[in-house]
């Protein structure tokens, strides 16, 4: 077990709202660690619509999802947030009147005074393959992520998808698997051009079989795959021998472990009071898409406002001895000092 990280605040979720929370907390001298299951910041903006323009961020007439995330990162840089990517906060426990223990699925532990849940629609997790009966094979011979490459050594492997994950694993596993068949519904790939070229070279060499079509069913027993049924573009039906399958159908948000944190969820949302966006557990706040209150609008703008009010209440918990003085960023001594030091 790694050492416990002691900090003022842990922010669950590095979406736009979690990122801006770093700024608002920093302004009132509350240091924050940020955890996200994705491998980069930006939440929905970066995962779902990096190239699409957003028109309703005050002061930015037009900014893409990626652009907004980049701007937020630049804006919070003076507060030097510590990020922990590729891990999901799996447990939240109250350890005393005013401290919380958070544990991630990678074993990281935090001891924090304040918890800010900015989890949006939940954790981005791999989408289940749209193949009837796939549930029975999941975890035994169908996997949505590769934990150890060796598990596929000398296996007949079917990989499904046309994006970077599918093609990267095709390139990575082809040398060690007995055979690799890449199934994709069309002969157009979303992966990086260089990766696509490398994949095509392996197909030309006969190292990888490329099947243009869709998987329609699975054959096997007791969770162990024997073959993947697939329909080609011309409608013909095929059976592709397989011991293991890696389907990549993108990511979708699922609420995940947050449902078990005793926060009185209603319709998968966390109820909060609108004075400070605190949940029913004092010290635990919820901001952005994940919360619910009368009149809630699921807009980035609303999440930013919630972050500002949350930070005031969070600071009162972290620095109970201090008298809170309202400051504008134009004259904030904390911000000036951090900007000078950065």
């Amino acid at each position: 077990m790694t050492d416990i990280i002691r900090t003022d605040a842990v922010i669950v979720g590095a979406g736009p709202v979690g990122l801006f929370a770093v700024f608002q907390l920093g302004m009132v001298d509350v240091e924050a660690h940020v955890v996200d299951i994705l491998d980069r910041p930006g939440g929905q903006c970066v995962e779902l619509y990096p190239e699409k323009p957003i028109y309703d961020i005050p002061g930015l007439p037009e900014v893409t999802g990626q652009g907004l995330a980049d701007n937020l990162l630049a804006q919070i840089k003076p507060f030097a947030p510590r990020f922990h990517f590729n891990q999901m906060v799996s447990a939240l426990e109250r350890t005393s009147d005013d401290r919380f223990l958070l544990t991630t699925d990678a074993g990281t532990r935090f001891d924090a005074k304040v918890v800010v849940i900015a989890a949006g629609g939940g954790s981005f997790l791999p989408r289940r393959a749209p193949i009837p009966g796939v549930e029975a094979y999941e975890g035994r011979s169908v996997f949505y992520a590769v934990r150890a490459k060796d598990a596929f050594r000398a296996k007949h492997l079917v990989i499904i998808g046309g994006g970077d994950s599918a093609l990267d694993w095709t390139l990575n596993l082809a040398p060690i698997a007995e055979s690799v068949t890449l199934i994709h519904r069309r002969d157009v790939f979303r992966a990086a051009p260089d990766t696509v070229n490398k994949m095509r070279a392996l197909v030309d060499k006969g190292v990888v079989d490329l099947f243009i079509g869709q998987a329609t069913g699975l054959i096997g027993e007791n969770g162990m795959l024997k073959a993947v049924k697939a329909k080609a573009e011309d409608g013909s039906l095929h059976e592709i021998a397989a011991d293991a399958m890696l389907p990549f159908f993108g990511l979708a948000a699922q609420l995940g472990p947050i449902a078990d944190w005793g926060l009185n969820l209603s319709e998968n949302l966390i109820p909060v009071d609108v004075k400070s966006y605190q949940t029913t557990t004092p010290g635990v706040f919820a901001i952005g898409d994940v919360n619910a209150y009368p009149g809630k609008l699921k807009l980035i703008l609303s999440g930013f406002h919630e972050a500002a009010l949350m930070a005031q209440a969070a600071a009162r918990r972290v620095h109970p001895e201090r008298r809170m003085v309202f400051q504008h960023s134009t004259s904030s001594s904390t911000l000036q000092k951090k900007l000078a030091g950065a």
Partner: protein
Amino acid sequence: MAQITFTDHDGGERTVEAREGQTVMEVAIANDVPGIEAECGGGCSCATCHVYVDEAWSEVVGGPTPMEEDMLDFAFDVRPSSRLSCQIKITSALDGLKVTTPQRQG
């Protein structure tokens, strides 16, 4: 006003009124048409509003955009007539449009 007919994969049929400017997905949700989930609310980022456009209408409706094609990669049983219904805007030219919902969304 335009009339849109939704057929589910068992052959059940529903014809509903649509306003110009709405998307086919919005019309389905507003009328509780089964078989359309639309998890992302029309953002072209979930592929759970997948429909098959009736052959007679394919030309008027047109094909998917490249971004929509990318999302269709995540759908079940994609066919040449597949579209994401949140990306089809109703115009007067679509009065009488017929679409079928797939056996499952995702």
